């Protein structure tokens, strides 16, 4: 005796958020049933394991059928197959496009290609995110990347409109797309201490200040590519380290401003020239694609690590950089 067929279809599609999450997380039906049993749903409605299994199977099937629509979320709103209340649709989309920070950290800056996809099982093993979930997340990145690649206009807004995502999630996706496009190296051991959100913040800053879109907001790829002209102009900063006078002038301006305001003043004063050289060198090399990729690793090696070894605090760093920038503006050359 065995159940050959078992389906339940509601006029309004019934979806349990808990089961949806389990499905998204890549649990098999049996594992999901176990998790649910431990979660205590059974007591809620005098259910048995069979009931739970049947329910889980039904829901999994529903999600599988919905998945096709979730690939282009705009369709979900005007498809006829499932009658899903709007707030549910939003939930479905938001959760489907949600990702694990640990997973995205692994693929951040990598080319979203088949090659990377093949490595997913390694990433899955490393991050203990199930392979199924890894694939979904990876495919989401790729899908978003492909769609916005061909679109004009601001990146975040495009993602939000095309995939009906929340602002936060759209920004994260923008960061992922931005990183993937510029192939920033994030996997090195020295960068491991940085979380996805750290990079996402950087991406946000880069997008709003360094891209073509920062200047002109109706160009293709405006937010995805760094502004070549800007990078070219950065080369002019070299004068700050090549001109001895300028370097000293800059140093004295910064030191005057910082004196007494930071505990690490002595160390800062001592390493000013090295730090400035490090920063300017990174900036000057950015016309080179290879050096763009190494942007973060260079930044860490040439700037952050020396500061850290001198036990700068974050506030010290902020203060230093603010005055470093402001002082440069005061210099005659940049007036």
């Amino acid at each position: 005796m065995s159940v050959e067929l078992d389906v339940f279809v509601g006029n309004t599609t019934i979806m349990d958020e808990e089961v949806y999450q389990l499905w998204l997380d890549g649990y098999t039906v049996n594992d999901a049933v176990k998790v649910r049993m431990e979660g205590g749903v059974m007591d809620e409605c005098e259910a048995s394991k069979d009931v739970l299994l049947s329910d889980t199977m039904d829901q999994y099937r529903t999600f599988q059928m919905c998945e096709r629509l979730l690939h282009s979320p705009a369709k979900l709103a005007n498809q006829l197959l499932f009658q899903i209340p709007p707030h549910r649709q939003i939930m479905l989309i938001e959760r489907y496009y949600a990702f694990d920070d640990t997973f995205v950290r692994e693929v951040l800056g990598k080319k979203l290609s088949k090659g990377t996809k093949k490595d997913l099982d390694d990433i899955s093993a490393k991050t203990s995110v199930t392979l199924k979930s890894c694939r979904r997340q990876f495919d989401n990145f790729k899908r978003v990347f492909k769609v916005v690649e061909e679109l004009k206009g601001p990146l975040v807004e495009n993602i939000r409109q095309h995939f009906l995502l929340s602002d936060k999630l759209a920004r994260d996706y923008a960061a992922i797309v931005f990183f993937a496009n510029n192939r920033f190296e994030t996997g090195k051991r020295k960068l491991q201490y940085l979380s996805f959100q750290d990079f996402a913040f950087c991406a946000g800053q880069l997008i709003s200040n360094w891209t073509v879109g920062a200047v002109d907001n109706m160009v293709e790829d405006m937010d995805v590519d760094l502004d070549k002209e800007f990078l070219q102009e950065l080369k002019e900063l070299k004068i700050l380290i090549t001109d001895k006078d300028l370097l000293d002038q800059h140093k004295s301006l910064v030191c005057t401003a910082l004196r007494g305001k930071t505990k690490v003043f002595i160390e800062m004063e001592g390493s000013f020239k090295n730090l400035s050289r490090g920063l300017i060198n990174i900036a000057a090399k950015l016309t080179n694609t290879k050096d763009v990729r190494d942007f973060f690793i260079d930044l860490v090696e040439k700037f952050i690590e020396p500061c850290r070894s001198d036990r700068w605090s974050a506030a010290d760093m902020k203060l230093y950089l603010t005055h470093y920038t402001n002082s440069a503006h005061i210099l005659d050359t940049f007036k």
Partner: protein
Amino acid sequence: MPGKLKAKIVAGRHLPVMDRASDLTDAFVEVKFGNTTFKTDVCPKSLNPQWNSEWFKFEVDDEDLQDEPLQITVLDHDTYSANDAIGKVYIDIDPLLYSEAASVISGWFPIYDTIHGIRGEINVIVKVELFNDLNRFRQSSCGVKFFCTTCIPQCYRATLVHGFVEELVVNEDPEYQWIDRIRTPRASNEARQRLISLMSGELQRKIGLKVLEMGGNAVVGYLQCFDLEGESGLVVRAIGTACTLDKLSSGSAPNTNTHMHPNTAPASNACNSPSKDGKEPVFVEDLPSSSGPPTPFRALPTSSSPPPFSPSKPCSRQSSSSDTDLSLTPKTGMGSGGSAGKEAGPLRTLLRQQTQTALEQREFPFFTLTSFPPGFLLHVGGVVSARSVKLLDRIHNPALGNTRSYKLLDWNSVTADEPETRDAWWEEIRQEIKSHARALGCHAVVGYSESTSICEEVCILSASGTAAILNPRYMREGCLDIGCTDHRFEEPSPPNCGFCHIPYDELNMPFPAQLTYCYHCRRQKVPDVLFTTIDLPSEAAVAGKGCLIQARLCRLKKKAQGEANATAISNLLPFMEYELHTQLMNKLKLRSMNALFGLHIQISVGENMLLGLASATGVYLTALPAPGGIQIAGKTPGDLSSEHISSIQKRINDTIAVNKELYQINPPKLFALDPEVFCGINMELAEEGVGSPIPEPRHRSRLFRSHSESSDELSELDLSHGKKDAFVLEIDDTDAVEDIHSLLIDAPPPTGFYSCNTENMPGISNWTSGVQMFTSVRVLRLSNANLTNQGLNKIFTDLCENLLKSFYFKLRSMIPCCLCHLNFTVAVPEEELIQVTVTAVAMTYDKEQTQEKTAEKPVNKGSLEAEEQLQFPLELCADSSSSNIQTASKISGVGESTNMSPRAASVDYGSFADRCSTWLELLRLKAHTIRRGSVKTSRRTQSLAHSVSSLERCSPLQEGRSRSLRSSRSFGGSSVTVVKMTPLSFLPGTRIIKYLGIINMFFIRETTSLREEGGVSGFLHSFIAEVFAMVRAHVAALGGNAVVSYSMKECVFMENPNKNQAQCLINVSGDAVICISETDQESSASTANTGQTGGSETDGAT
């Protein structure tokens, strides 16, 4: 040229990629109606094509308009090879043919392919221009409205109920034609879909014609079914109730279509004009025979001198013990029954006679309605049912079929069966039902339905209904005039208990039944248990809540062929019915209830087994005596220790107590004691002084549990189980123990859930707006070939119970909620498969209010007294009419007998019954039977003549009831209308303002890549979702936002996993409506329409 059909193809979206190279599609559309086809331009390289075509115009007969669907085919243009079909849309244009329904069909339709399912959507606009046709001999019946709803639709008022209409159309099944071997599965499926669509159209048109002949303008309770008889063809048959409906103007109180009460009823034009009365023959003598079209019920309002009236005279009418008597009944009519007023209540007799006169006129006084306007239903006798086993291959005679059927076919080799053969079969069954009703002293059958179960060449035809006596007021034209006379006498019996009063003669009861005086009015006799197929009348007084009660049964049968098989089945049938009945009765007692509503017994035949499933909603009617308990008795003390028995007894008593609590059964009686207490208490009669005591000797008889009993025992087996105080279950073998255990297995629904299979949930009426309709299908494979009946029963019971448990679990977020209209369908698709299909709706309700409502019950007694004094004048007129009718019925009786077609060469359940004796007949009557404990009353009980609906009116409209409905409807910016679906006739918190037409759709889905589609479950899951989507799309295109009275009539699933193939056929129907939230409406129309606040109660009454 009475009609012009116009169609415009606007656009498509989400089309599938048909050209792999470009990942695009070059789509164009063919629009076909009848034999005319138009094409749009090709819209190259787009998945979202914009055709914006011209208006394609079809000039057609209205006959074709009714029969044919508009067929839209979307294709992919291919320069070099044949164009590939993407999919089709069939649009039934029937809703455009009523003047007051939809005026345009416009919207997005899913493009459906029988192999691939839904493939994108297409936007279409369809209009019809109808010219008036004055041709008397027209074949069309445009304008007749159809409703699936089994009550008078909201926003209509029935001025006249004409009665039963039926029709069937037979054709050859395209699947079984030679051409099927050479055509693709897609072509075959499409031929089938098209044929069925044509046949349903034709059927509806023919029924419409009958309605027009009867002078009606609508069919209510329209029930259409398919019989897929395989080789021997395809039958599409339908039954319904012809009515004359008046649309209520929006200004008048919307929900008072129930008010046939002359005081409140607005004067209808039809009623007041005398000319209308003269238009049609007033008298029955005009009717040559019953074969003619039935005319509306009519009774004589004028009175001549009445014949002597002898209420006490014992009657000589047929006793239930004689089978032959019964079969004679329809021919002799109620000659003897009607002549003497031998019923206890003269008024009742009188009313009955009056109605009888009207009803005698028609061939089948059947009504497919299940709920009626208050006062329509006077008395309910009990369930009547008939089954007949037929052999399909025997009638495989290629006689000339209906000429119309030929036209439907695209091929030449037509060997359709004569529809007359099937007509004769059903005629036979209906006659039987009619005679059963007569035996119960009833002149009408309400809540009538018909069904079939087919396995290979064996077919079981079943019909069932509830024998009843109806109020003659509704049966004739000019009801208002008559209403005035009636008004003077008021109702013959109080509305909240009147329908329980026995319609038959207590001295000559058709079966042994225990009668007591009505616990409400104390004036009339009531049975101790009442079984019906109708919904609980809105005015009925109930205690506590109702609940779903199911009896489930499996019976193995040997595999056999032909006649032997049919004989085996018909031999098994009575046993199954008996056992189902026993189970129902036990379960009813176990829940401490005394009446069943919405009883539906399905018997399904498979190759090696029969499945029986009886579902009903149990309820405690306060007019009926409290049910006795169940007593366990050991037969052989050696087998089972008395300790064991007492432990079982204790469990049963505990269960009863728990159930009482659960369903809040606190009958408003002072003597409402535990049933056990009554065991052994001598019956004493109500010291009411209303009537003489009924002698009721106590004796216990055994309940026979297995049919292994010897035959002589069988012959004395009486379904009534004699008369006894408590219901005794005797444990004579292990089977009996099993049975008792299985009784106790039925788990009560978890807290917060209630369930019923009727329109109204007894005891709950304050619905909130949460509505979730669902369909669930489960198929079980029996791996073990050596199963016993007991084992099978257990498996089947578990299957049903587990399904219910699954529903409760899935819908737990809706608590407190009630599963309404739980409709179980069982089938045996293959030898070792059991399929159960369930469609139901879960509705949320306000817990707080329920309690308040049950707590307070208004007492209203004064009107009862007044009625009694007003009986006399009515007798005068009624009796004269009855005498007239007798002659009439005799005439028509002759007609009937000549009309009787010879029995088809097949095994008939009825003929089997001839061989057996009384009890079998009783079995089929299946009226209230099993006895319960006696009741001692020492006080006058308060007659609680309260009306629930009046209470409803007082209840303030709940805040926020419609909130969620509205919020879900406002689908932010999206183009998809939310369409609610429900198997009920109403949507809580809303009012239906317009019926847009009937939805009747048939789909086939087939796959040759079953595994890839997620196995059988994945395949069926998406198919059902697709069917829902297509129904919703059609409703939305009609401008509607809901489907009421939705039902899935057919769900035939076949699979061949080895070939990776599966096929499924689904037929759904319902009424497309526009409904508005009650709060919206309230603000627009400030008129105080008090009636409608109480969702279910009032709705049910309509």
